[in-house]
């Protein structure tokens, strides 16, 4: 068997080496002419321009509807357009969520080519989030739009569950950047649950996961946006401090609780009175504890992920190849895997591979330490968030979570009256 393989390999090698001149060029006597070969060139640039124009226009419409008009109808139309165009027609590459990886790779690697469209897809929703809140999530993102369109009922999850699940996007974001900057894998693209549905084909596991998410989003508002989407996590940083934002009208509010019930992302917080009176000294002590616990979490996280950086680096193809080659060198197998066949067939040297592998391992050690520190920070902030209990005198919007879907407008009995008589006062 081994001999056969060897012959096959050497034949193949010879084939590559002498491929150009094994048989002479025929000289035709019958006046035969070589057929013209035309290679299809991509007609992408036109579509990409349309993508970006549509992205801006749709986000503008949502911002106008949510902030100025305070109505949901245009947002539903935007959602339908987005699912049809960005989802089914363009089948979503590149999307803003995936662009995180290209951007972070471009930031650390100067040789990486970053197209204009990718930069715009990354930065425009962030700029809009900074100006008007998460209007991209509202209906321009086909993933959000799809979940919004199928959602009928909001079963509310408990605070503990929301907090724990709410950490996933951050950790996902951190790992996506870790694997992107080490050129290992684009995990956001690989584990995209909806792309298979939009393309009507693809990885069966991910399609099943996407279908489950869609079924869940009938009963729970936007599970992907809240508990998975790393770009949403990034946008929430900017929408938290956005310049203009969706507001509840405090003067007209009759405390009916309808908006709180309607909100699919649990962004409207009802009035709450914290009955525990805390003295100033106690408050200072609490803050001090935060300042001690948070660095501890950061250090623990950094230490933990650094210690498993070897395992994490196995996501890299070269590291996996190195492991395979090493195992083969120790106990040679009769049947070579395709990777080993290619490696030995190309005559690559083990030293070169070892060098490459060591460089990647070192990179992983460095970046996974940072990633671990950030994960510690995420967990620490989640815990602090759980321990804080602020008194609210009226309904308030959590602008980090609000996706400007406009559902609360249609539920608010005062909003309708206000718009008709034209005296909404913010």
């Amino acid at each position, binding site marked *: 068997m081994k001999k056969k393989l060897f012959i096959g390999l050497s*034949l*193949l090698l*010879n*084939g*590559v080496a002498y*491929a*150009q001149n*094994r*048989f002479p*060029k*025929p000289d*035709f*006597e*019958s006046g*035969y002419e*070589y*057929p013209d*070969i035309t*290679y*299809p*060139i*991509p007609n*992408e*640039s036109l579509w990409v321009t349309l993508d970006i124009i549509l992205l801006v226009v749709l986000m503008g419409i949502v911002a106008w509807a949510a902030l100025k008009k305070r109505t949901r109808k245009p947002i539903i139309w935007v959602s339908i357009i987005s699912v049809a165009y960005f989802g089914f027609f363009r*089948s979503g*590459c*590149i999307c803003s969520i*995936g*662009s995180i*990886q*290209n*951007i972070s790779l*471009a*930031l650390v690697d100067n040789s990486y*080519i*970053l*197209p*204009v469209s990718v*930069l715009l897809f990354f*930065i425009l929703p*962030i700029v809009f989030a*900074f100006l008007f809140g998460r209007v991209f999530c509202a209906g321009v993102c086909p993933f959000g739009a799809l979940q919004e369109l199928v959602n009928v009922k909001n079963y509310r999850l408990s605070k503990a569950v929301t907090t724990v699940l709410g950490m996933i996007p951050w950790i996902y974001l951190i790992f996506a950047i870790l694997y992107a900057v080490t050129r290992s*894998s*684009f995990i956001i*693209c*690989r584990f995209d649950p909806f792309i298979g549905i939009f*393309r009507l*084909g*693809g*990885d069966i596991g991910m399609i099943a996961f996407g279908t489950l998410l869609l079924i869940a989003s009938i009963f729970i508002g936007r599970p992907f946006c809240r508990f998975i989407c790393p770009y949403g996590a990034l946008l929430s940083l*900017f929408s938290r*401090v*956005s310049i203009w934002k969706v507001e509840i009208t405090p003067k007209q509010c009759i405390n009916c609780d309808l908006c709180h019930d309607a909100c699919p992302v649990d962004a409207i917080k009802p009035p709450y009175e914290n009955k525990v009176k805390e003295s100033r000294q106690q408050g200072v002590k609490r803050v001090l504890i935060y300042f001690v616990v948070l660095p501890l979490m950061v250090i623990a996280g950094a230490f933990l992920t650094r210690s498993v950086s070897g395992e994490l680096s196995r996501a890299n193809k070269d590291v996996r190849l190195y492991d395979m080659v090493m195992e083969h060198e120790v106990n040679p197998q009769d049947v070579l*895997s*395709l990777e080993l*066949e*290619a*490696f030995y*067939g*190309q005559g690559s040297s083990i030293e070169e591979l070892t060098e490459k592998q060591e460089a990647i391992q070192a990179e992983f050690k460095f970046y996974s330490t940072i990633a671990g520190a950030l994960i510690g920070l995420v967990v620490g902030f989640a815990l602090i968030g759980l321990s804080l209990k602020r008194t609210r005198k009226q309904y308030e919007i959590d602008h980090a979570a609000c996706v400007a879907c406009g559902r609360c407008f249609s539920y608010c009995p005062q909003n309708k009256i206000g718009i008709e008589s034209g005296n909404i006062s913010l």
Partner: protein
Amino acid sequence: MEKRDEHKKSPIARRKFLKALGTAVAGGSILAVSGGLIGRVKGAEADHYWQIDPAKCTQCGRCETHCVLPVSAVKCIHANKVCGYCDLCGGYYRTNARELNTAAENMMCPTGAIERKFVEDPYFEYTINEDLCNGCGKCVKGCGSFGNGSLYLQIKRDLCTDCNECKIATVCPADAITRVPLTWAYKLKD
């Protein structure tokens, strides 16, 4: 109560200050990131597309099975000017073919995508029917080991959906799939 809210040290003022600080930091970071990346961005002619490097390709067969499309965007391409127009074609007939005819057991191509036409004695012209080709690379392997290597696998630009991360590239054992400028595309074997 109203008065206390307006007090200098009231939490509202502090929170407002923190918000303003956050807004400034957020705006600043947007400007910094976009400013830092705008210099890196290349113009439209620098758009890059997934392509196979035929010199590296080992015809492992994963192009056929790992593309996200139902039928792979990878097709066999025939560079006629390299071809020897042989009668006994390594890409057309199987190596162990009993008889040289078009019976399925003698053909290399599992889908019958290679069509052959008599030109003049002893030359035959081979063309690929791309509607039938599934990118398995069997003929490429055959032509490479017994022939001029005029057949090669390439990603067809009109079929490829241009995934952010090419799924075949993640499993390619030879690292043959990379993004190249359009000016380089296809022209690797002519």
